[in-house]
Structure formats: structure tokens, C-alpha cells
């Protein structure tokens, strides 16, 4: 039976299509209180008295809390990439002594209804002594005010290096520098965040609204509240999009738990969109300066990179993750024998930043690919020829960079980068696209084509587990600790089980995100689910099949190797006798329970090519993406329709990040993109048809399925490809040095170019981009 590789429709769709989904806001329990968060109205200030008297007296209000009410609760700790020195910058659950960004939780109102809680929150008054905020991390390390001496605004730098950089520069034919900046974006899932904590018998607690990493969050909440993790259960319902930002442990998640326990009633919190845009993790917002030592033929002998991550006001659960990944993944698909990257983690008075789909790769790919274009331009080579000259050859795989990423050795496991580039060039008729664009330019249009290459990473370990059991009706139930954020987990895992068990995928029920059902789970991030849980599923399904045949052998009086399993039945071909999986499971007594465990200490590395054709309106400086193409080698596509869906959806976010999306702040630190009318995301009108070429030429040798993650690569090189296409459209190589290329920014660059002539990029101060 071949189920893996088929574009099957998803088993999770019917409830979502009929209005029967159960998203967090849909849940109601008797006696429920509603929590409303009072948020800081200014970007930086000394926090004085908080007057809660009027609010507490309003109808329906049960309690009003400030930091004083939760003085014993610690700040939210790091889940990943813990770097020494970051601890002092963790976010308190409610602001203490200072407020450090607009939107920081300052007080909480608990009331009988959502309207009552919102009304009362308006009546909480915070006395804040405003201070001048710090908004530009390029100003220098800066300071992080505290009640004692201020701390440095640069708590850590991340350095990754290999090879002899000095020698590379000493012998260079040319040294080429570029600066590149990526704006402040975020995932902006269509469902805002929410949580519902329900206290139970004997001081137990169930937290609904879990996502991404339920098991980790259960343990973290237990630690923070000083409780046994066994008394806390996290439960995931339908989740309206993740993209890296949802499901991290936020102050609000812990606060609803603390409140439910202390007030003895269920507590529900659902943020509104304005809160979401000011309070959920921001991302990106990096600026790079790259310096390359190159040979006469464009070979990159050495690369020195310095960059700044605008971390926002606090360091949240991701610790140094984005900066770490940026430094590790910047070299991308190129050989680059000597390398040094220094990433500065700097704090500003903006919403704290974390990961957003392709974190550190969207940004570093933009910077690196801008550099490759600059090298080509300086040396008078074709941009693709320069890239080909530098690609890591297939014969060098696996390729050990000698540095690490997320604490795992950075070893590209498999890939033929040149081959994929060739295939993409042919499949999407790049020559034809370029010729057509040139002809249109000759006719007066501003049309251009851009190409960018990237390497992604996926399948972060260390482990995942799947438990299988046959239920009374013959359905196979798979319980796993991964999470579903809408990416099709149930279908993909069911396909892998169905392949082994010869069942239709509707015969498999996948349970995820329920800490009460399985003790271990790493969750859904870093494009890890298909790799880790998929492999654990394959192992579990094989074990279950072997057990089913062994038990059936006893029941049918035949050696197991003479039996066939298919369609939920074991048949003894010589006699025609059959027993169903349900009967076998009943005979076995334990539902044929099987466990699959998969461990991995390395990530794997999918890779791809993006091609964009854009048209620029010279009058308005608006950019239209006319065509978009992605070639992506994912090792093996379990469900190509879902892989394509991931790529196209990610490409939309990439196009948004390249052209539209940005959290802009006023000079006094007020967020100006606090609605969906101001934080612009692509609609169907802005999206071109996205063509996708899925390749399976380089299966991962690190798991038996050969799969690599498909969740992020549709985004990774979008900024780089679109930037190159805009340069090409306007015949201004190197023009685009910052994202998003909003019409006003593009207009400014063109004006500046006109008044100064074609100014080399390095003479532009970073602040002007």
C-alpha cells in the first residue's frame, strides 16, 4: 500500500468547515471569570501608584491585581538558547518598578463578564513617570534601567567562527561590503491568543488554549507556581495559526493559572487584536553589515558579519535563539572557507521579540543574497554564475560547518544545491522570464526578475514519542506530544501509520497536544513534527503490526509470516480465515499498545530556490509581484498537497515581509501598527500565483523516512528574491537594502539616488535605511 506521497485531503477538515471547530474563545464553562489586562500606555517610565479602587468597585468585578498581588511569582524563563547574562532581562508577569514597552501588562481585572472586565480595566489608573525611550538599537548598547544601577542594553553577543578569516582577507582580490536591514514583523495568526484555566478537585488545574509546546509549558507553569507538574494539565483545542509566536509561554498564560487557583473559579482570557499586535512576540528587525573577501572569479574566501537583533523590551522564552540561528545559518548554501559572525542582542522599548517562521533565516538570507548580488555586480559576473561558483558541492555532503545551531552541530546532512538550481532554472524557464522582463523594460515598463538561494533547517530533536492503541471499534488511536497549529499534523501522521498498517487514514485518530494523554512531548516548532513524530509513528506502527500478526498467529493457528494484514483485518490466505484488528486487540488485552520513540541529536537541512518577477510603478513606487516560484527539496513529501500548501502560505508571509508588513513606532515609542488596517498583510489581491517545484532528490539520511521539514522554506528567500527583482526592474543594482520595500521607502531611495548619483551602499548611514 502506498499512502506516503499521496496528496490526500485532510482528515482534520470537516469540523473546521462546518463551524464545529473548538477554538479557545469558543469555550465556556460555568462560573467562569474573564480576565482583562491593563497595559502600559507609554514606552518607558518609572511605575508609581496604580489606582485600582474605582475599577474594583465596578459591577461584576471580583478582583484587581497588580505586581504586588503576585510578588512571589518569578519572571517567565527561557525555553531555548539560554545564554549567560540574559536572566536579568526576563519579563515579569506584571510590570514592576518600570514599564518598558507600550502594551506591557501592568494590572489585571477579573470580572463576571468580558464587557464588565473591559469596562473596569478602563478605570485603572497608572501613575507613570515617563522617560525617553530607546528605539534605535544602532545607537549603541544603551541601558536597561533598574532600581539600582542601570544594566547594559546589550546583554549578550553571539559569535560563531571558523577558518582563517585574516588570511582570506589578506589574499583577497576584492573586499565587498553590504548593509542590509529587515523590518519588525510577526506571525499575526488570525486567531488571537487566549487561555482558559479551570481549577479541579484537589488543587488540580486544566489550562485550555495550549499550543506549540504544551508539555514544556506545563512544566514551566508548575515551576513558576511551585506545584507538582502532575497537578497541571495542558489541553490544546483547535489553534488558529502558530508561525512560531503562538504557544510560547507568555505572562498571561501563567496569570490565568495563578488566578484560577487563587480565586477558585475558572478564568478565561482572550486578547483583542490591538493587544495581540502590541503584546505577542514581534520578530525579525535585524540589521547586518557584511564584509566579503572574494577571488577574481567571485569565489567567497571569507565572510565577516556583524549584526544587531532588536530584541525589544525584554528577553522572552527564546533567549538568544534568533541571534544564534542568524549567525549559524547566514553562510547558507555556500562553501565560504572562513567565517566570523558577531550578533549583538540589544534591548529597546518595543514589544519583546521572539521567533517567527524561518527565524534568523529570512533575515540572514536577505543579507547574504544581497551580498552575492553585490559581488556579481562588482566583478561584472552573472548573479547565478557567482552563486554556482560558491555552492557546496554534492560530493562534500554531509558538510560540517564546524559551528553549532540551537546547540546541535551544524552539519548539512544531504543536498545537491547546484542540481536544484539547474532544475529550478529549467522548470520555471528562468531564461524566458528574464528575456521577457528585459523586453518589457525595453518597452518602458519597470519589470525585473530576482533569484535567491537558501538552506533551511528542520527536525530539531532530541526526541519524540508516539503511542498506538487499537480501540474497540478497530480505530487505531495515535497519541503524540506534538502539537497542531493548523499545518496538517493529523493527516500527515495518519498517512505514515496508514502506510505501515494498510488502513485508510480515516481509520487512524491522532491525538495531540494533551499532556494528560502522554507524558512526553516536544511540540511543534522548528519544522520538527513530520521528522520527529513522523518517524516515531513509523516505528510505533511497525511494532503494532508485528504484534497484531503475532497475536493473530495464535488466533488463526498459523505462523505470523504466513498471514497478511490489510484493511483492518488479518487474513490467513490458505484457509481464508480472518480476524479483525479489533478482535486481535481484544484478544491481546492491551489494545496492541505499541510505543515508537525516535531520538535525533542533529537537525536536517532542506534547501531551495526562490524566483520572483515584479513590476514597479514608477509613479507610486508600488511593487506588484507578478509571478513567484519556489523550488524546495524536502527529502520526501509525505503529502505533496500539504507540502505545497505550506510553501505557498509561507511565500505569502515572505511577500508580506518583503513589501508590506512592519511594526512602525512613533518617536516616543507608540506602536503605529496596532490594527490590521495598519499592519498590512497580503490579501488575495496582492498574491500572485505561486508555482511550486517539490523535489525529493536528497532524502535525509538521518531518519528512515528521509523526510525534512517543509514548513518554513516558502518564506526564507522571499525578501532576497524580491529585492533582487526590484533592483532588476529599475536597473539599479544594490538599490534595495532594507525590507519591507514600502512605496515610501522605495521613493526615498530613488530620490536619494537621483540627488547623489548612484551612491555606493556603504556610504549610506544605517539610519537612512
Amino acid at each position: 500500500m502506498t499512502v506516503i506521497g499521496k496528496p490526500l485531503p485532510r482528515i482534520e477538515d470537516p469540523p473546521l468547515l462546518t463551524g464545529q471547530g473548538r477554538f479557545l474563545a469558543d469555550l465556556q464553562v460555568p462560573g467562569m471569570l474573564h480576565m482583562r489586562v491593563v497595559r502600559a500606555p507609554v514606552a518607558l517610565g518609572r511605575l508609581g501608584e496604580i489606582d485600582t479602587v474605582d475599577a474594583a468597585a465596578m459591577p461584576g468585578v471580583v478582583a484587581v491585581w497588580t505586581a504586588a498581588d503576585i510578588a512571589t511569582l518569578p519572571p517567565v524563563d527561557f525555553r531555548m538558547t539560554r545564554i549567560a547574562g540574559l536572566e536579568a532581562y526576563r519579563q515579569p508577569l506584571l510590570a514592576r518598578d518600570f514599564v518598558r514597552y507600550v502594551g506591557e501588562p501592568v494590572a489585571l481585572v477579573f470580572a463576571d463578564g468580558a464587557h464588565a472586565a473591559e469596562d473596569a480595566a478602563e478605570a485603572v489608573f497608572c501613575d507613570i513617570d515617563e522617560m525617553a525611550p530607546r528605539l534605535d538599537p544602532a545607537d549603541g548598547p544603551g541601558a536597561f534601567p533598574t532600581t539600582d544601577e542601570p544594566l547594559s542594553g546589550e546583554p549578550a553577543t553571539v559569535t560563531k567562527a571558523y577558518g582563517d578569516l585574516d588570511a582570506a582577507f589578506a589574499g583577497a582580490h576584492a573586499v565587498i561590503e553590504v548593509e542590509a536591514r529587515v523590518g519588525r514583523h510577526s506571525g499575526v495568526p488570525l486567531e488571537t491568543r487566549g487561555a482558559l484555566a479551570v481549577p479541579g478537585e484537589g488543587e488540580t488545574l486544566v489550562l485550555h488554549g495550549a499550543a506549540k509546546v504544551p508539555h514544556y509549558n506545563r512544566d514551566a507553569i508548575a515551576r513558576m507556581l511551585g506545584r507538582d507538574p502532575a497537578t497541571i494539565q495542558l489541553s490544546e483545542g483547535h489553534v488558529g495559526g502558530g508561525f512560531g509566536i503562538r504557544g510560547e509561554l507568555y505572562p498571561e498564560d501563567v496569570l490565568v493559572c495563578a488566578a484560577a487557583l487563587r480565586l477558585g473559579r475558572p478564568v478565561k482570557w482572550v486578547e483583542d487584536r490591538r493587544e495581540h499586535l502590541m503584546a505577542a512576540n514581534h520578530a525579525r528587525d535585524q540589521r547586518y553589515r557584511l564584509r566579503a573577501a572574494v577571488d577574481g572569479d567571485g569565489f567567497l574566501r571569507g565572510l565577516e558579519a556583524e549584526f544587531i537583533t532588536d530584541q525589544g523590551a525584554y528577553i522572552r522564552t527564546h533567549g538568544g535563539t534568533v541571534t544564534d540561528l542568524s549567525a549559524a545559518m547566514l553562510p547558507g548554501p555556500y562553501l565560504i572557507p572562513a567565517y566570523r559572525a558577531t550578533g549583538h542582542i540589544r534591548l529597546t522599548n518595543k514589544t519583546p521579540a521572539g521567533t517567527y517562521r524561518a527565524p534568523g533565516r529570512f533575515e540572514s538570507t536577505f543579507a547574504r543574497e544581497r551580498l552575492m548580488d553585490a559581488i556579481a555586480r562588482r566583478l561584472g559576473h552573472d548573479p547565478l554564475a557567482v552563486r554556482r561558483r560558491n555552492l557546496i558541492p554534492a560530493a562534500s555532503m554531509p558538510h560540517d560547518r564546524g559551528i553549532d545551531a540551537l546547540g546541535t552541530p551544524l552539519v548539512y546532512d544531504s543536498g545537491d544545491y547546484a542540481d536544484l538550481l539547474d532544475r529550478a532554472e529549467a522548470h520555471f524557464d528562468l531564461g524566458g522570464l528574464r528575456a521577457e522582463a528585459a523586453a518589457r523594460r525595453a518597452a518602458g515598463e519597470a519589470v525585473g526578475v530576482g533569484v535567491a538561494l537558501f538552506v533551511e533547517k528542520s527536525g530539531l530533536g532530541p526526541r519524540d514519542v508516539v503511542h498506538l492503541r487499537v480501540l474497540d471499534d478497530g480505530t487505531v488511536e495515535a497519541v503524540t506530544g506534538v502539537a497542531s497549529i493548523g499545518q496538517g499534523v493529523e493527516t500527515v501522521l495518519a498517512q505514515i501509520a496508514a502506510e505501515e498498517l494498510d488502513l485508510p487514514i480515516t481509520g487512524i485518530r491522532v491525538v495531540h497536544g494533551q499532556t494528560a494523554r502522554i507524558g512526553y512531548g516536544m511540540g511543534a516548532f522548528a519544522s520538527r513534527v513530520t521528522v520527529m513524530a513522523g518517524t516515531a509513528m513509523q516505528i510505533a506502527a511497525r511494532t503494532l503490526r508485528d504484534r497484531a500478526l503475532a497475536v493473530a498467529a495464535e488466533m488463526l493457528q498459523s505462523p505470523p509470516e504466513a498471514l497478511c494484514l490489510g484493511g483492518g483485518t488479518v487474513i490467513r490466505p490458505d484457509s481464508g480465515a480472518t480476524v479483525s484488528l479489533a478482535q486481535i486487540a481484544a484478544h491481546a488485552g492491551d489494545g496492541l499498545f505499541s510505543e515508537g520513540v525516535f531520538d535525533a541529536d542533529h537537525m536536517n537541512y532542506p534547501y531551495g530556490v526562490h524566483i520572483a518577477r515584479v513590476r514597479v510603478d514608477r509613479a507610486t513606487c508600488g511593487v506588484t509581484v507578478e509571478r513567484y516560484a519556489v523550488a524546495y527539496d524536502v527529502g520526501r513529501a509525505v503529502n505533496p498537497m500539504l507540502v505545497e500548501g505550506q510553501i505557498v502560505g509561507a511565500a505569502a508571509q515572505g511577500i508580506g515581509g518583503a513589501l508590506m508588513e512592519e511594526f512602525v513606532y512613533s518617536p516616543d515609542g507608540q506602536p503605529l501598527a496596532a490594527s490590521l488596517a495598519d499592519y498590512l498583510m497580503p490579501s488575495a489581491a496582492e498574491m500572485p500565483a505561486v508555482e511550486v517545484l517539490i523535489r525529493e532528490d536528497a532524502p535525509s539520511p538521518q531518519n528512515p523516512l528521509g523526510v525534512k521539514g517543509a514548513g518554513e522554506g516558502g518564506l526564507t528567500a522571499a525578501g532576497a528574491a524580491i529585492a533582487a527583482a526590484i533592483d532588476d526592474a529599475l536597473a539599479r543594482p544594490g538599490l534595495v537594502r532594507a525590507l519591507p520595500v514600502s512605496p515610501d521607502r522605495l521613493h526615498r531611495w530613488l530620490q536619494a539616488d537621483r540627488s547623489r548619483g548612484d551612491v555606493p551602499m556603504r556610504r549610506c548611514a544605517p539610519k537612512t535605511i
Partner: protein
Amino acid sequence: MTEKRRIVLTVNGTEHAIAVEPRCTLADALREECRLTGTHLGCEHGVCGACTVLVDGAAVRACLMFAVQAEGRTVRTVEGLAEGDRMHPLQRAFQEHHGLQCGFCTPGFLMLAAGVLEETPDIDDAGLREALSSNLCRCTGYQNIVKAVRAAASEMRR
């Protein structure tokens, strides 16, 4: 403003006698009072369209309309799209063409598309893209939503 008024909402052919404050939006009334939670709230300021329902056959943002304004009018939500167990052609096409991922925006897109196709069954591709640009989806990149609606349109014309 906080005094409740008694109104009757006719939703998917069923009358719901409810009491709401005048400031209560149609979306909140559908979700909280009628317990029809298929209508989702993504922004509550009229941009994302996740709350799109049909009022007297026209697609509206249920977050921008007060419940009291819907009295005496016919409201249709995603819960009323299927006929019993048989899904609407749009629902089937969304599944067939992978027109949803997280599914949060899906009810809004289904109702938007239902309204558009009822009004203009033979809408052309440009018109359809334009109409579907009313709503936001953060997962799919819209490609499969457009594909699904086009497929449903041709099935519904048959």
C-alpha cells in the same frame, strides 16, 4: 447603554429570542447568546473578515453590525451552510483543494464566497480574486481558496 434589550434573531432559519445590550455586536450575539461559535473574531475592527455572515443574502462583517440591527432580517452563518450531513459544494471544495490550514478564517471565507456566488454565479477570475481580497488568511496564501471557490462555482452552476 448597558441595559439589555430583548430581540429575536433569525439565524439559519431558527428564531433565537435573546437579550443583549445595544452595544453587543452581531458577532458576539451569535457566539455568546446563540452559541453559534463558527463565526470567528479575528480583529473586531472590520479588516480580517473572519466574522463574515450573510444578512439578507449580503456578506457583512458581523463585528461591525450591532445585534439589534439584525432583528427582523435573515442571518446565515457557517453552521447553516451544509444540508444535514451533506456539505455545501464550497465546503467540499475547500477540503478537496486544501483551501484551509488552521481553519480559523475558513467560516468567513465560506460565507463570503457563498454570498458572492449566489449574487454572481458566473463571476470571472479577476472578479473572484477581488471579492476574496475582502478577507484575510494567514496560512494558505489564498491560492487554494481561489481554486476551491472556482471549483465550487462550476459545480454549483451545473
